[in-house]
């Protein structure tokens, strides 16, 4: 076990969400209640998955935590600070469904990007970028350009980039939603390994029940319209988890428990299975709701 790669941060929960509501309006008219009465605390080093049907607001919740959008009411504290302060302090590493890599930069330069913005010197940037790319097993691809990599490799670059500046919390918005099932399972193992190595707190949005169960210390189940937390399920699978974990009785029980919780919350499985209309809808609405 290597030393934690994340910066030391104060004790207490990393994220404290209290009474958060989010409505999208057009003019004076409330169009959607995206989130209603959300309370959630995330302890340091936890791996939390948010799962729910399309339109349940899980991506919106993640974006509120990351200060990419603000709640209509309620408070979000990250490391004891308002979300905006935390963003300005660069407490967040973000990974989106699309890897958002820049084609004009090599893999290594992409990982260096946040370090440049933080004003670190060149030798530190290089050392750090290479360390992170070793961590995601892409040490041999430093000089490649993103378009020369497969989707899974691109997403690993995005993860390396997100970890490069040692954020105290990693926000991942369906990072593997666009990958095929096989690649996705491998990426799951990889994220677990990175999480164990770095000790980073992770907030992870997903549509996939197996993914949520396999990765998480807790699964937060949400329902749609209005978006609410209907259940929080502790995942007590032993660690370290590996591919064998997916075949244990307890794993299946927990998958079933999450599925039933989703069903009880009104989200049909078909809904939960559709990849992505939700997040993009939420984004569209967020853009439409300026002012």
């Amino acid at each position: 076990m290597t030393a934690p790669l994340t910066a030391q941060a104060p004790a207490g929960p990393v994220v404290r969400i209290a009474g958060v509501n989010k409505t999208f309006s057009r003019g004076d008219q409330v169009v959607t209640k995206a989130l209603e009465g959300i309370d959630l605390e995330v302890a340091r080093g936890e791996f939390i998955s948010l799962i729910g049907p399309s339109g349940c607001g899980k991506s919106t919740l993640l974006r509120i935590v990351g200060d990419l959008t603000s709640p209509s009411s309620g408070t979000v504290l990250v490391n004891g600070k308002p979300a905006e302060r935390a963003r300005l302090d660069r407490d967040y590493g973000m990974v989106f469904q699309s890897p958002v890599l820049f084609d004009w930069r090599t893999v290594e330069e992409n990982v260096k990007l946040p370090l440049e913005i933080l004003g670190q010197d060149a030798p530190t940037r290089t050392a750090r970028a290479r360390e992170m790319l070793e961590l995601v097993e892409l040490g041999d691809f430093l000089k490649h350009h993103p378009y020369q990599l497969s989707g899974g490799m691109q997403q690993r670059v995005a993860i390396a980039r997100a970890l490069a500046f040692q954020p105290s919390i990693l926000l991942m918005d369906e990072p593997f939603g666009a990958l095929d099932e096989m690649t996705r399972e491998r990426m799951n193992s990889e994220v677990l390994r990175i999480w164990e190595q770095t000790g980073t707190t992770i907030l992870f949005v997903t549509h996939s029940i197996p993914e949520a169960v396999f990765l998480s210390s807790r699964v937060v189940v949400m329902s749609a319209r209005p978006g609410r937390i209907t259940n929080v399920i502790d995942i007590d699978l032993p660690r370290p988890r590996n591919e064998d974990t997916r075949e244990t009785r307890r794993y299946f029980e927990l998958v079933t428990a999450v599925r039933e919780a989703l069903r009880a919350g009104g989200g049909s499985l078909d809904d939960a299975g559709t990849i992505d209309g939700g997040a993009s809808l939420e984004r569209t609405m967020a853009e439409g709701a300026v002012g």
Partner: protein
Amino acid sequence: MSVSVGPMADLTGRPAGRRSGPGGSRRAVRSVRYYLPAVLVFVGGIALWEVTISALNLQTFVLPRPSAILAALGANWATGRFALLPAAIATLQEALLGLAIGTIAGLAVAFASARWVTARGILLPLAVAANAVPIIAFAPLMNNWFGLANPLSKAMMAAVLVFFPVMANVTRGLVQVEPGALELMRSYAASEWTILRKVRLPNALPYFFTAMKIATTLSLIGAIVGEYFGGATSVLGRRIVESASALKFDVTWGAILLGAATGIAFYLIVVAVERIVIPWQAGLRAES
């Protein structure tokens, strides 16, 4: 029992694209194969032109033979009443000046409208409206404003034509950034200036080069059309007008050919610079 999957080595597959290997000669063969049909059609077309005119016994004033055009080009290359090379150089200078003015103005408006939403709201509709005006019609006015004999009046004609494609393309390149990229930069608490340097500018470069490929041709058109309406005599536009009125159509065609060659050379220079400045773009195209 589980199928064990080993450690992470190369689990998510190989890179989709490989750098081109030791294949310089192979690439040469490929580019010959690529361009050969076009070259053949071109040469065939010229030959057909030559043969058809002989067969139909067409008069030179209708359409001179390619061989006659080449001969006229040679005879009037650097000297004589219709000296073409100095004329082409003078026209190229006007076009270059106009290209510079139009590009700088287009870039300025593009940056302003990318930076300030209000500026975009004011400038873009105006620019679109201005673009709907048949700009060629301005040529006599340009001559009036900047002086008939002043090369600047031709350069301004070129500049006006160049302005719009540069402005429109670069604005789009600066503004149409993947939304995720802006969110990423926001999560880094990056300033607008940093976002401009690290995201918007590189994003706009391919758009800029697309604009320049159009703009180089337009600048020559602008300069030549400006010349039609009078001014300095040793310019391509005047050579075309005067040789045509003297019924020396082979010379007219020679001048047109020279203008076309200049335009093509201009274009190829832009392509070459593009390859150097944004090599990743060529790689991207090769992948798709």
